[in-house]
């Protein structure tokens, strides 16, 4: 069973512009799913719909086999959410915040005391647990918010930019915690971010979203294969003829998409035969960032050719 199934989901706020356009996603249990797109692309709207805070204009979605709209309370029991538009109570202490949200989820008070301390410890906040959140730095507040999403042992965790505003050490700790949750407890992570390098480091499945449209879904390999972009040959060279189709990046650095070793060898030989000089050559895998921009560029090209 998939943790999340979304089928042709649409959302419009004003009846004219669509915030989401026929979104369909299937996310298996235990995956760390990266929902990647710029600000205003529809990531938070999707999270809000999947948690019953917003109602979809049309389409179908289910969480752990439960259709949205029927019993959202059960969905809230199994999901933990941390978005940039939801915060913790600043007039309460870190521990009071966790205990309050634990009680809201119906957790027994004795169990809650132990559990909130253990979460605060993992988030590096145990020593300040009795201080009011308003005295915390923004990074610490973010970690408290993450703690709130974790307090009831959710099966699905929705995280919106979980490491933005965190210092490198704490960002690393949070990333480690997310990975551990996915591995040890088979928690499905729905991670919204525009930090593509971070997503590449942590996610096992990706989806690109822009202006409410899904541009691509799959593993890195699947996304890359669809664009014939599994490998890229990068050379530092001189006198490289345009006929070989290399892209001149800067100061004698050229790059080109290739299929594998044979094509790399053939290209290098042909450049040399043609009077070119090669000082350095390396086969590079595409980064998620390059892949994302490839998808964006293709969509732009497609829309401009349609408008012509």
């Amino acid at each position, binding site marked *: 069973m998939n943790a999340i199934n979304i089928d042709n989901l649409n959302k419009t706020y004003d009846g004219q512009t669509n915030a989401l356009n026929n979104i369909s996603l299937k996310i298996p249990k235990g995956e760390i799913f990266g929902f990647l797109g710029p600000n205003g692309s529809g990531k938070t709207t999707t999270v809000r719909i999947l948690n019953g*805070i917003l109602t979809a204009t049309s389409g179908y979605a289910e969480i752990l086999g439960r259709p949205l709209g029927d019993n959202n309370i059960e969905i*809230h029991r199994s999901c933990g*959410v941390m978005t940039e*538009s939801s915060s913790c109570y600043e007039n*309460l202490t870190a521990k009071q915040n966790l205990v*309050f949200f634990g009680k*809201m*989820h119906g957790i027994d008070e004795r169990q809650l005391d132990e559990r909130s301390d253990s979460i605060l410890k993992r988030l590096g906040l145990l020593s300040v647990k009795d201080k009011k959140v308003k005295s915390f730095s923004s990074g610490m507040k973010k970690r408290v918010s993450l703690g709130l999403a974790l307090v009831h042992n959710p099966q699905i965790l929705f995280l919106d930019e979980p490491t933005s505003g965190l210092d490198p050490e704490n960002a690393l700790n949070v990333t480690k915690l997310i990975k551990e949750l996915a591995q040890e407890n088979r928690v499905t992570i729905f991670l919204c971010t525009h930090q593509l390098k971070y997503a590449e480091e942590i996610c096992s499945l990706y989806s690109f979203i822009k202006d409410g449209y899904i541009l691509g879904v799959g593993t890195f390999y699947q996304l890359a294969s669809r664009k014939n972009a599994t490998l890229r040959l990068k050379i530092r060279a001189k006198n490289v003829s345009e006929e070989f189709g290399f892209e001149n990046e800067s100061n004698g650095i050229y790059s080109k998409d290739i299929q594998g070793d044979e094509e790399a060898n053939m290209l290098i030989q042909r450049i040399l035969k043609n009077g070119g000089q090669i000082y350095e050559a390396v086969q590079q895998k595409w980064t998620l960032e390059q892949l994302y921009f490839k998808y964006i560029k293709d969509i732009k090209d497609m829309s401009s050719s349609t408008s012509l």
Partner: protein
Amino acid sequence: MKGNERALISKDMNEITSSKRIIMPMTILPVILTVFLPLLILAGAKFMERDPSIMERMEPLLTKLPSEYSEFTPPQLLIRVALDLMYPSFFLVIPIMCSGVIGASSFVGEKERKTLESLLYTPISMVQLLRAKILGIFVPTFIITLASFVVFCIIFNIGGLIYFGNFILPSLQWLIIIFWITPAISLFSLTFTVMISARSKTFQEALQVSGLLVIPVMLVLVTQMIGVLLISNSVMFIVGLVLYIISLILINRIAAKFVPEKLI
């Protein structure tokens, strides 16, 4: 009531007591109305004791009051006028202000501080959320009003012992005010605040609009003071009943529109 509703009410109470912007107005106004002003009235009574000519100057008011008032000595008259005509309206400012401040903080404050969305992700139904929020406003408002009334009774009973030779509070009129009118006006005021909270973006904005409710109460005060209107116990009972009915109608309307999408 379920555990999560109790947790929400207790959290709201905790927030009220730890927030200066809520606790300050809720302390200052009751202290002025139930301590300083009554002490001033008692001081005024002492002063009137020495100046019997004051009764002549109050003749126009006395003609509009029931005959029993003409039998009072000047200090007794001042205390009775304050208790029977001035304070019933004055006192209602306390529950209106409390439910306005707590209500604005409880709804708009949560929206402003982005904590309402966090609450909406917890397994609480919208009916439970509304009920807990209403109780979280109503209960502290009533406790503050009741505590203010106890202090008010002590101070006026000192005056009662001095000038009447017995305790003058609580009277039937004041019992109706505290246990019938005050809950009714608190409920109405908080319902009004919840309604405007949906449209307000900031705590201050919601507070200013909810403060408009003081105007009709002040009008009743003025009309009482100039003797145009004398509110009897039965009128107070009917006014309370009307306020309860209007509040229940409004709560039902709010509940129908109380959906997450309209709250965030």
